[in-house]
C-alpha cells in the first residue's frame, strides 16, 4: 500500500478516523493492521486532539 499521509479536521476519536479511512480506502476492510497514535500502539478507541499523528501499521517483517 505504500505510505501516504493526509490531514483530517473535525474528528474526535480514533474510531471516527478509521471509519473515514475505510470509506476512502475500502481495501482497509480486508487487511490486518495495528494502530499507532503518536508512535504508541493503541488497542481501543481513543480521543484525539489537533496535531496528533495516527498511523496504520501492517504486520511487521523486520529482522
Amino acid at each position, binding site marked *: 500500500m505504500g505510505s501516504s499521509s493526509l490531514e483530517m479536521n473535525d474528528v474526535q476519536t480514533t474510531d471516527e478516523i478509521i471509519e473515514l479511512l475505510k470509506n476512502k480506502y475500502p481495501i482497509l476492510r480486508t487487511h490486518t493492521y495495528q494502530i499507532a497514535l503518536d508512535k504508541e500502539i493503541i488497542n481501543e478507541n481513543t480521543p484525539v486532539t489537533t496535531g496528533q499523528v495516527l498511523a496504520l501499521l*501492517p504486520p*511487521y*517483517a523486520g529482522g
Partner: protein
Amino acid sequence: MSEHKIRTIFIEGPITGNFVGEKISHHMNKTDIGGHSIFLGQVRADVINGKTVSGIEYSAYTDMALEVMHKIRQDLFDKYDLTCMHIYHSLGLVKTGENSLFVFTSSKHRAPAIKSCEECVERIKKELPVWGKEIFEDQSHIWKVNN
C-alpha cells in the same frame, strides 16, 4: 542505570562483514568485557508459489521504530548486566545471502550477553515497525510477514 540517547539503528543497504568486523574490533579496549553475543539476520532465497526470492526491500516507520528500539534497549539494560549493546537494521534492498540485522551484546560474562541478544532479536521481530517487500527474480513482489 545510565540513560541512553536515542540513536539511529538504520543503515542503507546490507550490513557487510567488514562493518561487523570493525564493530567487534572497537571493543578490544573494553577490557571488562568477558563475552560477546552476535546475531546476524540473513536474507533467505525462499521459494513461494514456484518463484524464488532474490532480495528484500526494507522500509520502516523510522521515528516510531527508534523510540521502540530505545525502550527495548532500556528494558534489556535494566534486566541484564550488560556492558554495551549495538543494533543495526538495513533499509532499502538487501539481496539474498546478505545480512539485514546485526545485534551485538557484550557483558562481563556469557549468560547476560547471550540471553539479552536473543531477547533483543525476538522483540525486534515482534515490536519494530519495519516492513519487507520480498522481491522475486521476475521483479514481482509480496509483503513479508514475520512468523
